[in-house]
């Protein structure tokens, strides 16, 4: 299925900014969350072309203002001498976790809203990022105010 979606995007020339895919709560279905660049192509066209794929059952457009988004980043940063303390301080401020400690590098992971990751990444860049990897955004629609009171676990509508 992923191959079909990627293939569609490639041949129609739609730009994928990030992509995350995994099985859902129902084992028959998997969910792909794509961040797409709509400056070149209207979102409506992309959605309609995706629907033409026989295996696509549902498409939800997640407006960042109305959804809950998360992303995970893992980065190895230069942290020798004085820098180490400073890096650890920044990590602490962002509530990031230190995963590994080397002689002059630290590996840090941070999960949170994409914007928070962007800010963190920019700060780390100042210290020198050796290598980093982001997972791609996952998102679900924000619950409506009333629904939040009676929200139950299980399949969303």
């Amino acid at each position, binding site marked *: 299925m992923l*191959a*079909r979606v990627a*293939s*569609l995007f490639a*041949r129609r020339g739609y730009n994928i900014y990030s992509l995350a895919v995994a099985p859902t709560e129902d084992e028959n279905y998997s969910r792909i969350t794509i961040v797409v660049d709509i400056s070149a192509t*209207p979102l*409506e*066209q992309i959605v*309609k*072309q995706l*629907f*033409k*794929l*026989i*295996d*696509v*059952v*549902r498409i939800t457009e997640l407006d960042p203002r109305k959804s809950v988004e998360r992303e995970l980043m893992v980065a190895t940063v230069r942290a020798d001498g004085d820098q180490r303390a400073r890096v650890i301080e920044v990590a602490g401020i962002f509530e990031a976790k230190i995963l590994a400690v080397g002689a002059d590098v630290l590996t840090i992971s941070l999960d949170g809203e994409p914007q928070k990751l962007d800010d963190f990444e920019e700060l780390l860049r100042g210290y020198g990022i050796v290598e980093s990897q982001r997972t791609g955004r996952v998102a679900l629609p924000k619950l409506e105010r009333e629904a939040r009171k009676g929200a139950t676990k299980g399949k969303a509508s």
Partner: protein
Amino acid sequence: MSKKEILTGAEALIRSLEMENVDVMFGLPGGCILPAYDPLLKSSIRHVLVRHEQGAGHMAQGYAHVTGRPGVAMVTSGPAATNMVTPLCDAFMDSIPMVCITGQVSTTAIGTDAFQECDTVGITRSVTKHNELVMRAQDIPMAIRQAFHIATTGRPGPVLVDLPKDVLQNTMEWHWPTDEDVQEALPGYRPITKGHPRMIKEAAKLLLSSEKPVLYLGGGVLKAHAAEAVRELAELLKIPVVTTLMARGAFPDDHELCYGMPGMHGTATAITAMQKADLLCALGARFDDRVTGKVSAFAPDAKIIHVDIDPAEQGKVRKPDVPIVGDCRLVVEEIVKAVKELLAEGEQQVDITPWRSRVNGWKEQFPLTYEPSEPGARLKPQFCLEKLRDAAPKNTILVAGVGQHQMWSSLFWKFNEPYSWVNSGGLGTMGFSVPAAIGAKAGRPDATVWAIDGDGCFQMTAQELVTATTEGIHVKIAILNNTYLGMVRQWQEMFYGERYSEVDLSGCPDFVKWAEAMGCVGIRVESPEEIDAAIEKANSINDRSVVVEFRVEEFEKVFPMVPAGASNDEVLLHPTQESRREFLK
């Protein structure tokens, strides 16, 4: 308790095809698909053995074009599957229902670069409406049911089913999925056929209130069997009609409301009527670039009603004022009802007689034209087409390849019945003509099938005439031999300062000898005196295929022409009409 019936995957495949009412299929056996060819011997399905898998694909297309039923092709793995890419892509571009079965190496060998292995599903992913690799014999009936369902519903298209050799050899318990089972297994596929009532009413109002309306008919009208409904709409409101390259025959050329084909090589009348319209009612059409010319300059004053079964076409090229997703026939029938209701309530149609007489004026002033050949010079291709047209038996299906001959065929022939014209529009596949003609004849054996071909196109797929001969599927081929790749030569003449690069096909082959070598009657026509007798002879032969080589003028150009990237207003007319150009407004 019902008895369990154990079949091999191959037997299940053949039986599934029979259950889907397949009467003929086109194919060529090979290693991986071999198991399927054994039960075929006892089957009611007729198998046409081709000489190139690409031929099988185009034959399946030709069959589908004229019957509306899905064309079926079966080939083996590897090179055979890759040979199907062109016909699949062609069917995909023109929305032709087609089911292609390909063999594949055993499931245990997949991914090991085995003999005749290729990633068929990966390779054909972007040229099929859907495709699937079946991993268990048990899944074969459902895979076939799904394939036919997807190919023939919604916007028709090609579907490929890839069957590994061991899956065909393994046994399974026979079962035939019900319609409900099929629906349930495809939760993501729910084509919309019924148009939204409010949109339909809007369309009806717009049709009544527009002063310069045009009905823009595309291939979808034929796919939906909507010709009758469309005719009712056109006659009810007396709206001028144009038929695209894929819709020729959807509205009779002889009808007073028909203004022919629009597009890059359309008639000046059709092109201009669309440009000047204040309403374009697009039925089963997709605003293809060959029709719109420069999109920003296309039909600048027109409101758009867009009826199409594919939601993705709405707004893809031009934003519609009234988008209607649905089956063309059902929607047009509802529009007719809505219009009649409005008229009954006292609404009146705006007077469009000034518009109609304006359009008729163009038709009078700018008919299709060509200069007759000089005495002793080579025949004009348009003249040959006119002769073929006037002598064609009733119930003739015309097939064409791609190029100048295709444009002249579409323009000069008179299509008064739907499903009488077969050509490759979207992909523009040279070599389409001969195999598609054979497929068409296999689907409509009662009809006469004339295939117009260029000398370039003929050389790509002529070998399938051997298939025609051995299988007794008799077609008539007219080669308009101008010894050039005509359309390319025209562009080089017009846009590359007559710098002719790699378009000369002269010297070879001898088409008549070649035809005879393939068991056909070969006839050569070089002068006007020979033409009538040659065509009459061709039309009288019914026990063999006929190839008539017309030696035609090399440097003839197709007019009108809208140069690529230009606005339709910049259409180039035939040189003899350019002086009257100011009247084309």
